[in-house]
């Protein structure tokens, strides 16, 4: 199934979009691999992945229909 991925901050600027669609590869580390291939411009950037508003570990499964987001390092305050 297709995931819609929200993108923020510097990552959003680099790939020039606020969200995009991608086939669900199953878990977080597979998603990262896929992103690195699709967007070489973010290979060197640090980011975390959130699933349904919670930070996710690399081994974590991505449920179909989940809200997934790429989060560069926070800089609020």
């Amino acid at each position: 199934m297709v995931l819609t991925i929200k993108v923020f901050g510097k990552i959003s600027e680099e790939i020039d979009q606020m969200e995009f669609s991608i086939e669900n590869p199953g878990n977080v580390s597979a998603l990262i691999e896929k992103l690195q291939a699709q967007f070489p411009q973010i290979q060197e950037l640090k980011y975390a992945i959130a699933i349904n508003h919670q930070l996710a570990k690399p081994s974590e499964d991505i449920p179909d229909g989940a809200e997934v987001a790429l989060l560069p390092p926070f800089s609020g305050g």
Partner: protein
Amino acid sequence: MEKLRTPKNIFVQGPISPIKIANSIANHATKTDIGGHSIFLGQVRADEKDGGTVRAIAYTAYEEMALQKAFEIREAVFSKYPLTCMHIYHSLGEVKTGEICLFVFTSSKHRKAAMQACEELVERIKAELPIWGKELVDNDTSVWKENT
């Protein structure tokens, strides 16, 4: 005045005005079990960057996640310290140098709880809320901030 377990919006469009802060303080005059308030204010600095000086920070956030996280932090800090009140406000959009972008306000019967809770909130807000600041430099370049 304050109720636990009610998620609330923390975001303010643009800078947080000193008048908003004054009103927030004045609203606590009826809570006569409060003995101390602790306030932290984040202010935008005119840092020097390659080829220019920061003139503003433009804030964006993953709002739904930030509000969820802020709610979790709020609950955790309320259960750790004997607080009477707690308020958190963060700017979105452009905040110029010298303006306030973060307002954290805790109140308690005795001063220690308010001060410790305020400090803990500030640290957790900076580390855990998905908010991003882009420093706008006066030569029309920009730099994404990164909290350390």
